């Protein structure tokens, strides 16, 4: 987050890049007028500059076309630097994990570069490094992906390796054993990471049992134990198909150059004769596309004895990326917990010093996702901080955004997009997200207009609809013995217990 120590946690800074303060709602402390001491001599700095309206920004729309194997290509040319980034996305995310096999989608993606084509895992890694390329594979809730970034002069050679990874993974037993061991160790380690634990428990408690999003994409100790190499091979064969894939390419390459590269790199990626499996996400879960079930607020504590801070997550059902509200809610969220001057961060951090930072988000997923507000707070202020979070979210649900926030969030939504498309890697990942969730190539452009058009009344309506906390799920990871009396003091007496995997 903000004002980071360079030695620590630097990479995260871009994440929270939008938001605003609200002078009308909470006037700044002791705002002495700027001119108070400037009566005698003119202020050498002159008056505060009033920035004009920035030029409108619409995210670029990639050209798109189908390749012979059925893969849809989205190409966004960028010729400023000799770099190309490409990302394949397939409907092979964690939501498609079979019951009891959580983590299969991610492990399948992780196995793709553990030997591919004629090369074993070390040779493959060596060759990627020799080309100065980076190759990542992974899976989110809705989609699996493989992303390559490389200097243009090495594009042909690197794309050949990328093609092997996507179309000819070896999926060998020896490598699977090793990957599987590392996976299970990582799940053990996850239990001592408070933020990760909060995320796992939130999903488990907010979604009904068996919902495709109820389990973490990296699975649980029990589900990992159940995943076999045969599962991986089947999942790969069923779901990593060229006729269901989209390939997003951003950078210093023309369509003609790209096609020549892909003709070679993806030559052996052929769709099987069998029809692809369903891409609908199975049983419609109880709250998908409908209001949250009437229920009571739940509070769940995961004990972390002696922890100096409690991680608090306040969660409830959110929206689907396909709902029009999704674009508009990014602005509601910017005012609530999506930027430094957001209400949650100002309250917990700047006014009370209980936390290094507080933030919130709506997830962006094919089915209805979640809203989560989260902060790590000094243990002795767990009750105070929770009450403040509930009160800030409640106030936003009741009254919506102030005029200042309406203006500010419009600017911040624009700013977020400019930077999301600044580098080829970021742009490929952002477009890959649209492709993976199932949007068209013009989604970001269209959504930017929807978000910019939303007026105060619309923002208030959506805030009321999606920030009501009557049926919220509150997860706290911290020392239970110290937290319990603080919760009781704010009227919370029904406290559930959970292990670090939500069990």
């Amino acid at each position, binding site marked *: 987050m903000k004002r980071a120590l360079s030695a620590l946690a630097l990479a995260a800074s871009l994440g929270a890049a939008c938001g605003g303060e609200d002078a009308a709602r909470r006037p700044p402390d002791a705002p002495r007028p*700027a001119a108070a001491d400037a009566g005698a001599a003119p202020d050498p700095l002159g008056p505060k500059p009033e*920035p004009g309206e*920035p030029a409108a920004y619409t995210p670029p729309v990639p050209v798109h076309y189908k390749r012979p194997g059925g893969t849809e290509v989205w190409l966004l040319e960028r010729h400023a630097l*000799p770099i190309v980034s490409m990302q394949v996305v397939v409907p092979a995310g964690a939501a498609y994990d079979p019951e009891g096999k959580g983590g299969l989608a991610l492990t399948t993606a992780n196995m793709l570069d553990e030997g591919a084509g004629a090369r074993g895992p070390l040779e493959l890694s060596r060759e990627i490094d020799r080309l100065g390329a980076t190759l990542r594979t992974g899976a989110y809730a809705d989609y699996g992906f493989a992303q390559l970034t490389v200097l243009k002069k090495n594009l042909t050679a690197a794309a050949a390796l990328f093609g092997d990874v996507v179309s000819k993974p070896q999926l060998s037993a020896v490598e699977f054993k090793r990957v599987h061991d590392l996976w299970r160790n990582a799940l*053990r*380690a996850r239990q001592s990471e408070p933020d990760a634990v909060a995320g796992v428990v939130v999903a488990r408690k907010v979604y009904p049992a068996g919902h495709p999003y109820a389990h973490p994409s990296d699975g649980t100790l029990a589900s990992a134990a159940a995943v076999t190499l045969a599962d991986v091979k089947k999942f790969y064969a069923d779901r990593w198909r060229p006729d269901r894939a989209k390939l997003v390419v951003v950078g210093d390459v023309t369509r003609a150059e790209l096609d020549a590269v892909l003709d070679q790199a993806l030559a052996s990626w052929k769709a099987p004769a069998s029809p692809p499996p369903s891409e609908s996400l199975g049983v419609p879960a109880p709250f998908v596309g409908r209001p949250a079930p009437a229920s009571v607020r739940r509070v769940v504590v995961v004990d972390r004895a002696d922890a100096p801070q409690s991680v608090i997550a306040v969660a409830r059902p959110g929206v689907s990326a396909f709902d029009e509200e999704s674009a508009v809610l990014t602005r509601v969220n910017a005012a609530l917990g999506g930027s430094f001057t957001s209400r949650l961060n100002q309250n917990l*951090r700047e006014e009370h010093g209980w936390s290094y930072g507080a933030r919130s988000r709506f997830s962006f997923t094919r089915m209805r996702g979640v809203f989560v507000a989260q902060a790590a707070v000094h243990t002795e202020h767990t009750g105070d901080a929770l009450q403040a979070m509930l009160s800030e979210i409640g106030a936003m649900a009741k009254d919506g955004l102030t005029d200042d926030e309406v203006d500010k969030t419009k600017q911040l939504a624009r700013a977020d997009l400019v930077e999301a498309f600044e580098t080829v890697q970021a742009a490929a990942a952002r477009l890959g997200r649209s492709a993976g969730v199932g949007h068209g190539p013009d989604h970001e452009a269209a959504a930017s207009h929807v978000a910019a058009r939303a007026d105060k009344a619309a923002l208030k309506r959506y805030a009321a609809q999606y920030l009501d906390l009557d049926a919220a799920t509150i997860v706290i990871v911290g020392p239970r013995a110290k937290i319990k009396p603080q919760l009781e003091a704010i009227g919370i007496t029904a406290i559930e217990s959970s292990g670090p995997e939500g069990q």
Partner: protein
Amino acid sequence: MKRRRPPRLLAAALALGASLAAAPAPADVSIPFTRSTLPNGMTVILHENHDVPLVVVNVSYGVGSRFEAPGRTGFAHLFEHLMFMGTRRVPTKAFDAWMEGAGGWNNAWTSNDRTDYYDVGPPTSLDLLLWMEADRLRDLGPLMTLEKLDAQREVVRNERRQTSENTPYGKVELRLPELLYPVGHPYHHPVIGSHADLEAATVDDVKAFFAKHYDPANASLVVAGDFDPVRTRARVEQLFGAIPSRGAPADPGAPGFSDTKTTLTSVVRETIEDEVELEKIVMAWQSPRHFGPGDAELDLLSTALASGKASRLYKALVYEQKLAQSVEAEQESAELGSRFVVGVIARPGISLDRLEAALDKELEATKKTPMGDDELERAKNLVETGFVTRLESVRERASLLNMYQAETKDPGYAQKDLERYRAATKEGVRDVAAKVLDANARVILRVVPVKKGKAK
């Protein structure tokens, strides 16, 4: 210390026909800029580029945790937080509120050596960004109050709890500097400081620190991105040029210490208990300063040791011997001397003694035999691509210009920086490793799970 992937940049903002790796011809890796000095001694660097509708203002001050007074560890970083607490013109909370209202955002970081503030916004916000930076440099210190100080003191203590105390292995960064450097060395304490020292800081400390270090002659301003250089230069001169200077404070350096001669005379061992599942070994050495002889070689060595599956340590300890869960290595470059750090997380049931012996064997090998030509080529190519990638972002280019200015007095040092890596040889890497990675002059820190049931 500095950001994780230290300053190894390359490549230019504008189209460059970069023929990097394979060909021996050096790539053109310059970031175009102009530099001037205001009458009060402030450095001004402009980098104009209209690819993206963004402007970035980066202000670097030549002060970090190594300038802190005894009993005031963590103060430079605490001060960084206070720089956002307001003045007469910009009341408390308005700095962020006005910036975000204009569609911008900002952040800052503090290292041992420097404090760096940056603002990002649309081109229409540039005048406001400059005005607010000038305002706080001119007026912030004398207007400090206990209320402002107390507010950020609590935030910083929570930053310490979050990033060091409640994060697995986070306590290493609290302890390592104290073990690696002797009392009296300016790098002896962690940047975040101790709770006791943070609690002890006073308003007078803040005012004195501001008066001494936040001087235009100790500052360098970069404006980068989509702006008009003629108008902007005039505006910068108007806003910053009249801020009075007392002269840049003298840099005390590290008298009596040398970055080429370690102060360690034996193996310093310690074991930390932490809320972790898997045990870890961290080894650290004092190593040559940033841009000093051997610094680039050690950067390349760290890449060859731990970057990618085919790297030395990953291949031996994770892939083949299956002793380790993960490996990391880094030359953490800094102005007065760097540290070379290797970290290995053990698999369950593997004793740290056994893991340490296996790790030592790999490290000893790098000191005896030069790495293969292919290993060196891979490391160089990875480093070079990293530089090109960073050059895509206006914010990174602004940051790099100020880093080179601060550390080499030449914002355009990128080309020479790249040359350091290009010129490195496998024999050179071996020789530096043999000199620096002394098995009998290092810190070996172990992190083990807290013993359950132990009274606290």
